[in-house]
């Protein structure tokens, strides 16, 4: 990993909420600094209200910020062709089938019309939904919808994949399965990924590095390097090393709950 160049540079990044001429603004994210190398899988963990989703939205170009946020040498100023977002709500168009939905991102980003069907088929296969290509969202389970969501994001070939608690609405078992699935899909390409979650196990299992955020104000408390072998097998969650990472993360969360400032 250390031989890869830095792809995302975040320096003194702050995000404020509040009307432009209002007197009271709320600082959602305060003075964040982080470098992400190309091909890294970063997870962002923290209690609710710590600004992790807001940070992701800034990376996506959907929210204003102050400070430096540079991806591949370009300052982020809006949604771009180099990034794609996987939201917690699958946000699938109910009137399109699986293939129609996977194609949507490419249509919006003006991919060549003759290229689209092939890419769609390839990605639908990658996420394991070829059998369900003509199904509509209401006929799919939550996990399946998120796979479509992921396929759509990968279809536009982003340099950076941004994911905001994509498995948050799924039950615990599905979440485990999806986590393993995501890594399998990710292994084929190893795109740079930033994955927000509140689930500590998920955060460690998926990541090369875990960014721990705290609240009041939203800021980075620690960045923990996860030194586990890839590809990650589900048994790794039972190792002592995994447990020690988990312990550290839980300490942070407990400190947040107790209201202490670390």
């Amino acid at each position: 990993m250390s031989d890869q160049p830095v792809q995302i540079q975040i320096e003194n990044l702050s995000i404020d909420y509040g009307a432009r001429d209002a007197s009271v603004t709320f600082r959602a994210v305060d003075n964040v600094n982080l470098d992400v190398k190309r091909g890294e899988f970063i997870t962002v963990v923290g209690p609710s209200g710590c600004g992790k989703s807001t940070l992701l939205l800034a990376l996506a170009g959907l929210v204003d910020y102050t400070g430096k946020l540079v991806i591949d040498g370009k300052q982020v100023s809006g949604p771009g062709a180099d990034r794609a977002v996987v939201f917690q709500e699958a946000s699938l168009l109910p009137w399109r089938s699986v293939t129609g939905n996977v194609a949507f991102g490419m249509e919006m980003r003006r991919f060549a019309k003759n290229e689209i069907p092939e890419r769609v088929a390839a990605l639908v296969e990658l996420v394991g939904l070829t059998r369900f290509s003509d199904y509509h969202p209401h006929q799919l389970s939550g996990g399946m919808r998120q796979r479509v969501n992921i396929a759509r994001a990968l279809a536009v070939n982003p340099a950076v994949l941004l994911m905001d608690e994509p498995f948050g609405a799924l039950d615990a078992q599905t979440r485990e399965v999806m986590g393993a699935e995501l890594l399998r899909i990710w292994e084929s390409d190893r795109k740079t990924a930033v994955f927000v979650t509140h689930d500590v196990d998920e955060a460690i299992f998926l990541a090369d590095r875990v960014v721990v955020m705290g609240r009041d104000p939203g800021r980075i408390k620690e960045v923990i390097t996860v030194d586990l072998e890839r590809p990650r097998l589900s048994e790794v969650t039972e190792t002592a090393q995994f447990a020690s990472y988990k312990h550290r993360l839980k300490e942070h969360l407990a400190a947040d709950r107790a209201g202490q400032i670390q």
Partner: protein
Amino acid sequence: MGIHTKWRSLGFSVISMASILVIWQLIVTAGLVNPFLLSSPVTIVVEMAALFRSGDIVHHFVASGVSLLLAFTLAASVGVLLGILAGWYRPVQKALDPFIWFTYSTPAVSFYPIFVAWFGFGRPTAIAVAFVFAMTPIYANTLTGVKAANADLTRMARSFNAGPKDIFINVVIPASVPLIVSGLQLGAGRALTGVIIAELFGSNAGLGFAIAYNAMNMSTAKMMVYMCLVVVLGLILTQFMAAMARHADRWRS
């Protein structure tokens, strides 16, 4: 709805309509009601056959049907178009608001004399009254549908660099189809009412005209034939619109 329940409710419909017709027939045959006041179902059917052979029914049915079609098409096009514009551009909505609630509060019939003064008795007036009456719910429903664009879907589309036009075509319009369709259903019923009422007041052809004409001539049976035909036309219209609604709703479970 399972097949079983479907047959069951169909059975009930048939039985209830049949019983009502039987009781109705008995009341008149038994002399409980003066046949001048209420014709028996049998009389109506006989009269209907005669009028059908003479071509009168076809003539009036088609006359009303054509007016209905024209009025509804006009109301649907204008209503949906304005609704979309108003839903997408707030100033348009604000500009149209006072005029819309005026047409909502005013009984459409009261425009009838104005339209007669402008267009005379006949089809144009019937279409004008029906248009005003039908356009309002079509506009209102379309407006609501367009405005209720799902925030999640819009944000998702934005993350893929979709511009306002993309979002409008790919997210807002398809999502508003159910509401537009229910607005059209309401509008269709109102268009029928508008046409019939206008014909009732004064026209030269159509089911409403036939009812009024036969009422004036005290031909109860003939009048009731046409009244039943209006009911039939209403049912056909409702079923047709419902079928269209189901078709548009295909992707829902």
